[in-house]
Structures are given as structure tokens and as C-alpha cells.
């Protein structure tokens, strides 16, 4: 995985958004993320989590298949319906299908994130026997040179393409996405065309967060400028009016909260060591569901989210905060080691968004009145 912001479960449409809002009022943990490993066979420069594939110490601390399945059963008893399996690279685990096959029989809506490079015809065939609702593969470029300049692994582009073709051949539900960086932005249109030629949906993300373990990374060198981000957002993802309408709807629901997302309301993450956290970007509160029970761990996540201090006075006074700013406590922590402080890069993005969308947003608000 390269950017936690790309690692949010697939958008299931208006019905599920409505169900999420209703579940949030009851704190039903409908969406879980199981991060099966932090190890990955690629070495992307901007990745927020990656460790070496042969990291024996990390591997030894990963939950076993039996433990993941016990966790899934407890999560289901507490109301989990949507399950995202992610890494690292999930197919590095030799027991992946031991976990996956049993999970598919429990009745979850499963999404699978992978880089695709370990998907052989045999793996695709096994997935097709009980497919996830969606598989998402991240493309890092449209050419081997760009892709491999980012992943750092020779031959990975060809293996990724072969993995995609195997999944297409076996009709496994699949979507492609990219993490846009300074190094591959010039191939965005070409990647979109690749997806089109395979008959696959394509999406892109550009919000690159730092490593959650605080280790050095090259993410800052990979980020686009704020104006580049918003130009891409405005052209690649949705028309300005649609963006502004959606942003206003979301803002009306969450504007008074620190976490303006589903973290701790309907969603949680369990990391490879079995620690339950509010989201992929942070290692808090590190509750231990297999020791204290899922329910009590979920309560700890809720309490953590509710206990995070209010945003800084600078953010509270900011006129572009409510609709345009993507800051959240997790991002503040990654960038400033506090849950509250503003992040200059996100401030720039918020200003660029305001410039781009304010006409449409004002019009929608005027019409609503």
C-alpha cells in the first residue's frame, strides 16, 4: 500500500452511505480493515507503511490465520459487514487463502487491496472460486521505467500487468487506481487508458501521508503542489459542482467533529500485530481485541476518537476549514506529532480548493436557503 488515504474501502454508493450514517449513531462497527501484514515485495518511495518482505521479526509478530478468523467472528457478532483486507502485500502471506476462504463463507462484503504482482493464473483462479466484491490494484505508472522507478523492483510492472490480466481472465471483480506522485503524474492519462483498455474502472488519489511509524520516507519529494492536486481533482474525479455538493453534504454531518470520517463511529482497523486502531494512518489506541474481547476494544477506539482534543484555534478560525480542508487528527499527528495543529501543505490545498470551488459551493448554499 502506498497512501492510507487511498486505502479507504470502496465507495458502495448512496444506500451504503445512508446505512453508514445510521450505523454511526449507534456506533455499530460495520466496516473493518484487517491489515494482514506490513511487509511488501515492492519498495515504493512514498509508502506510509512498507517493511521488507523478509522481515522475520515483523513476520513473527503477525497474527496467525486462526487469530484473524477468531477476530472476524467476534467482529461479525458486533456488527461488521464490510471487510477490507490489505497490507503491505497480502499475497506475501503463504496462509492467505487459509484466511480468505473461510472469511468468504462468513457473509462479509470483502474488498481486497493488492499490488497485483504476486497474482498468478492459479491465484486468480482460486479467487474466482469465491471472489471478493472488489479487488483494487494500484498502478504506479503506465511504463516499466516509471512504475519501477517508484516501486524500486525490476520486473514488477510486467508482473503487475500479468496479475491484472489473470484477474480479468477469471472475471474477478477488479478496479485499478493510482497514487499520483511527481514521478508518475505525466502518465496519469496513459494509466487511465490502460484501465479503459482492460475494461476496468480507474480512480486516482494524490494525498500522500508520511509513514505512520515516524520513520523517514521520501513522501515530501513525491507530493504534487497544492494547485496541481486540485487541478487533478477537478478534472479527473468529478465536476466542480458535484464535488462542492458532496463536500457540503459531508461538512453538514461532521463539521463539529475532530474526526470528520467514520473512524471510531462505524470503522476500525486491526494491524498485523492484532492492535485495533481508529484508522490506517495512526497506531492509536492500540486496543487488543484478542485479549480483552472485540467489544471492549471497539469501545476503546470510540473513546479515543471522542477524547482527541479540539483542533487548534488557528484551524477553528480558518474560513476554509469546513468544506475544503482535508486535515484530520491523524494527519496532524503524522506531520506535527500533535492531534491538533494545522499542516501547511493541507492549508495550501484547502485554499486552492476554495479558489476552484467557491462559486459552485456558494450557489448550492444559496439555493438551499
Amino acid at each position, binding site marked *: 500500500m502506498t497512501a492510507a488515504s487511498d486505502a479507504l474501502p470502496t465507495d*458502495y454508493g448512496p*444506500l*451504503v452511505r445512508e*446505512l453508514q450514517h*445510521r*450505523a454511526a*449513531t*449507534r456506533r*455499530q462497527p*460495520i466496516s473493518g480493515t484487517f491489515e494482514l501484514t506490513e511487509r511488501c515485495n515492492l519498495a515504493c518511495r512514498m509508502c506510509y507503511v512498507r517493511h521488507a518482505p523478509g522481515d522475520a521479526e515483523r513476520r513473527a509478530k503477525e497474527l496467525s490465520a486462526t487469530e484473524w478468523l477468531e477476530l472476524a467472528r467476534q467482529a461479525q457478532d458486533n*456488527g461488521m*459487514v464490510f471487510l477490507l483486507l490489505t497490507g503491505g502485500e497480502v499475497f506475501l502471506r503463504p496462509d492467505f487463502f487459509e484466511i480468505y476462504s473461510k472469511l*468468504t*463463507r*462468513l*457473509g*462479509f*462484503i470483502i474488498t481486497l487491496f493488492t499490488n497485483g504482482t504476486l497474482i498468478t493464473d492459479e491465484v486468480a483462479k482460486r479467487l*474466482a*472460486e*469465491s*471472489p*471478493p*466484491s*472488489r479487488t483494487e490494484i494500484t498502478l504506479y505508472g503506465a511504463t516499466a521505467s516509471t512504475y519501477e522507478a517508484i516501486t524500486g523492483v525490476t520486473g514488477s510492472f510486467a508482473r503487475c500487468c500479468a496479475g491484472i490480466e489473470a484477474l480479468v481472465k477469471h*472475471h474477478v*471483480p477488479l478496479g485499478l487506481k493510482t497514487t499520483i506522485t511527481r514521478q508518475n503524474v505525466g502518465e496519469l492519462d496513459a494509466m487511465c487508458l490502460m484501465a479503459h483498455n482492460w475494461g476496468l474502472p480507474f480512480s486516482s488519489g494524490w494525498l500522500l501521508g508520511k509513514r505512520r511509524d515516524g520513520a523517514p520516507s521520501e513522501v515530501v519529494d513525491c507530493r504534487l503542489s497544492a494547485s496541481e492536486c486540485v487541478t487533478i481533482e477537478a478534472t479527473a474525479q468529478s465536476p466542480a459542482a458535484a464535488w462542492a455538493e458532496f463536500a457540503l453534504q459531508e461538512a453538514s454531518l461532521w463539521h463539529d467533529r475532530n474526526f470528520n470520517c467514520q473512524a471510531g463511529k462505524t470503522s476500525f482497523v486491526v494491524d498485523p500485530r492484532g492492535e485495533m486502531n481508529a484508522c490506517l494512518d495512526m497506531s492509536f489506541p492500540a486496543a487488543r481485541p484478542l485479549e480483552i474481547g472485540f467489544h471492549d476494544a471497539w469501545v476503546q477506539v470510540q473513546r479515543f476518537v471522542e477524547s482527541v482534543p479540539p483542533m487548534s484555534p488557528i484551524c477553528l478560525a480558518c474560513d476554509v476549514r469546513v468544506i475544503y480542508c482535508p486535515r484530520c487528527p491523524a494527519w496532524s499527528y503524522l506531520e506535527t506529532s500533535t492531534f491538533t495543529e494545522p499542516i501547511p501543505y493541507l492549508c495550501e490545498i484547502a485554499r486552492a480548493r476554495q479558489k476552484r470551488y467557491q462559486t459552485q459551493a456558494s450557489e448550492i448554499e444559496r439555493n438551499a436557503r
Partner: protein
Amino acid sequence: MMKRKSDFIRVNIADEKLLVPVGTQVMVLNGLITLNNTADCAWELLAKERSLDELAAAFAERFDITLERARADVQTFVDEIARLGLLEP
């Protein structure tokens, strides 16, 4: 006679009852199906093989409605789930 397929699992989100496909059924119907109270009742009854008359009689008793109305309601539901491929062939 009819019976529901076994490769759907009933789940709850905030008291909304939903059917989730499992196994290869995901290839056929990749989505969620919402059930209202009557549909949920019929789905439970169809865990065993039933005739339309048996379903209608159970509905009439459960919801305190006439047999005629129950038969019409059941027929609508059965037509819909047959269209979605939720019944055993």
C-alpha cells in the same frame, strides 16, 4: 414448490436487514439486497421448501391479513427474488 438459495447471508446494519451474496454468487449479484419486514419473513420461511399456498397462509397468520392479500404480497415477493436469481432452480 420453492426454496431460497443458500449462498446469501442475512446481516443487519442499524436494524436494516440485508442479504449479502457469498461464494460464486458474488459474480452473479455483486451487491446488497435490502429486505423489508415482510420480505425478511418470507426469506426466513423459504429456508425450507414451500409452496405459494404455504407461504401465503403463513403470511396471513403472521401479519393478520386476508389470505387473498397475503397471496398477492407473496407472489410479488417471489417474482422479485426469482428475477434476482435468489431461488433454487
